[in-house]
Structure formats: C-alpha cells, structure tokens
C-alpha cells in the first residue's frame, strides 16, 4: 500500500504569467530522476491523503489499489 506521492513543481515567470507545472509520481527514485533531469527542479514527498484527488486516484490505479 502506497502511503506517499512525490511532487516536482515549477513556478510562473517573474510577472506571474504562465503556468505552474505540477508533476506527481509514485516513488522517490522516480522523483529524483525527473528532478535531476531538469535544471533547478526539486522534489518533495507528500502524504497520499494530501495529494489532489486526481493525483491520488491515478497513483492508486497504477499500483492496483482501490482509491
């Protein structure tokens, strides 16, 4: 049973325009892999219950667990 998800996020530009990209992955290794591949990107661990509904639902689906 997974208990955490991992987020890699970005921010909008200095004028506040643009978009925040929020990537949600299932493992620390995967989070590190993605963060290391993009300059300046960091990752953080988040309890599964604190993820957004769509993030949690998809992670659980991918590992075969019921939401």
């Amino acid at each position, binding site marked *: 049973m997974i208990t955490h998800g991992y987020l890699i996020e970005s921010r*909008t*530009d200095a004028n*506040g325009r*643009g978009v925040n*990209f929020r990537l949600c992955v299932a493992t620390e290794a995967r989070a590190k892999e993605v963060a290391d591949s993009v300059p300046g990107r960091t990752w953080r661990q988040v309890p599964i219950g604190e993820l957004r509904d*769509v*993030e949690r639902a998809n992670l659980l689906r*991918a590992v075969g667990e019921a939401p």
Partner: protein
Amino acid sequence: MTIAFQKFDQFVEDAWKGVHNLSTGALKLALCAAANAPVAGNSQLGDLTQINYANLSTRAITTVSCEQLSGTVRLLLTDHVLTASGTVAAFRYIVLYNDTPSGDPLLGFWDYGGSLTLLNGETLSLDFDGSAGAMYCS
C-alpha cells in the same frame, strides 16, 4: 525555476486581424519533443512535429474568461491535468493553440525545461494563474 510563456510571432497579427476569439475558441495543447522545439516563426499546428499521444488524456483546455479590465485583457484558463494511462512519449514543449479557426493557429508555448516521459499513473497538472492569466495584453 520560472517557466515563461513564449508567444509565436504570428499570434499578435492573428489577434488583430480577427483570426482568434479567445473567449469562444477551443483551445488545446500540443506536445513536442526536445528535438522538435517550436520556434517563434511557427504559426499553425501543421508547423509542429508532435509526439504520439497514445496513453495520454485529453489535451482540450477550458477557457474561464477572456475579458479586459482597466485596459488589460487577460486569458484565464481552467487548470488542466494530463494523465498517463501508460507510458507517454517524451516531450519538452507544451504548445497552446486554437483548434477552432482553420489551420489551428498557434498562441504560444511553455518549455518544461527538460525532456519528460510520463509513466502510467503519473499526472502533470498545469496550474494556470487565476489572476494574471495564462497570457495578457495591455
């Protein structure tokens, strides 16, 4: 790390010549691999080399509003989630285009900063600025 929206040169002309109605147009995302970066001179969807979209959820964007206030028009978009139901082909550039006019004219794009492959169960959320807008003109 900031991600700036880079508009295509043709967009400003298209906007002034009535090609776009960003309040009603069907906006969509197109994804391009690192080796196929969009350039400022691109103008229509056909100018891009897109990835294979197998295993990826809808790329259709919902427009909240496109209205002016004190002389500044802002394009407000509903946050969008790209979901992978299997491995998705690697991409780096995320392009915003208008699917309504003939030729699918381009608006602009974001550079994720590196090549990204979405795996099964992973989600990439695009949290658009709900105040400043995804883009604006003043």
